[in-house]
């Protein structure tokens, strides 16, 4: 794992969480949309928060694809699950929600889960060219 790859993983979490918060804030001001009037969803795009959320989530998708080009899916998903904690923190700031003891326990479990993969390889050895596997697998590079 190079610093650049850590930066990509961090970007996935930040862009994903900020995108979700932005979309959520926008949709709250748009109001509820029923399934019978699904075309109203297109009008929601005019909301600046929704538009900002879409831009952030496009960035999220680009960084997610980049990470999947050099790491396993079963590495990327847990490794970026800090994003859920970031999302809880941002919701607290923007929506003034309380962080209950149950949620702190959830945050601790996710942190332990991230710790499990963070110490392991990011790519299955079979996916690495034979000659390079011994030296690069521990670092997670391809």
């Amino acid at each position: 794992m190079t610093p650049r790859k850590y930066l990509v993983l961090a970007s996935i979490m930040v862009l994903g969480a900020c995108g979700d918060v932005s979309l959520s804030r926008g949709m709250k001001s748009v109001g509820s949309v029923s399934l019978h009037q699904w075309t109203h969803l297109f009008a929601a795009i005019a909301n600046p928060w929704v538009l900002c959320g879409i831009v952030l989530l496009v960035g999220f998708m680009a960084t997610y694809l980049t990470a999947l080009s050099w790491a396993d899916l079963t590495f990327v998903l847990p490794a970026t699950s800090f994003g859920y904690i970031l999302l809880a923190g941002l919701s607290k700031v923007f929506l003034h929600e309380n962080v209950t003891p149950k949620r702190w326990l959830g945050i601790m479990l996710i942190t332990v889960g991230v710790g499990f993969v963070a110490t392991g390889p990011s790519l299955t050895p079979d996916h690495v060219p034979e000659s390079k596997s011994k030296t690069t697998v521990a670092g997670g590079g391809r």
Partner: protein
Amino acid sequence: MMLHTWIAIVVLALESTVGDILITRAMKQIGDLHELRRRAGVFHVISRVLTSGTLLLGIVFMALAFFSLLLALSWADVSLVGPASASLTFVSNAVAARIFLHERVDHRRWAATAFVAAGVVLLAS
């Protein structure tokens, strides 16, 4: 808790898993994007990504999962549908990645998947 809500949650998790597996497979076929950009430039990277049939099919499944989420949300609370589908997707992704992508899901990754899935349920409850 109605049966059709659970069916929607399971269908949602399956669609999202199929989407993730297809997208991962496409990105592994395309190869390391940093390397590719260094060799052929950023426009080549964009055209390779956008013309991948597997990737586009994966995005179609992601879109289906999104519409299933909207449907499930019209039947049940977000506090149930969100964490239930997210943690189910974590587990089904680990199983599918092992079967279809031949990823080596070792003890560490199983433990990480279980802890994160449980944590998401608690966080969103």
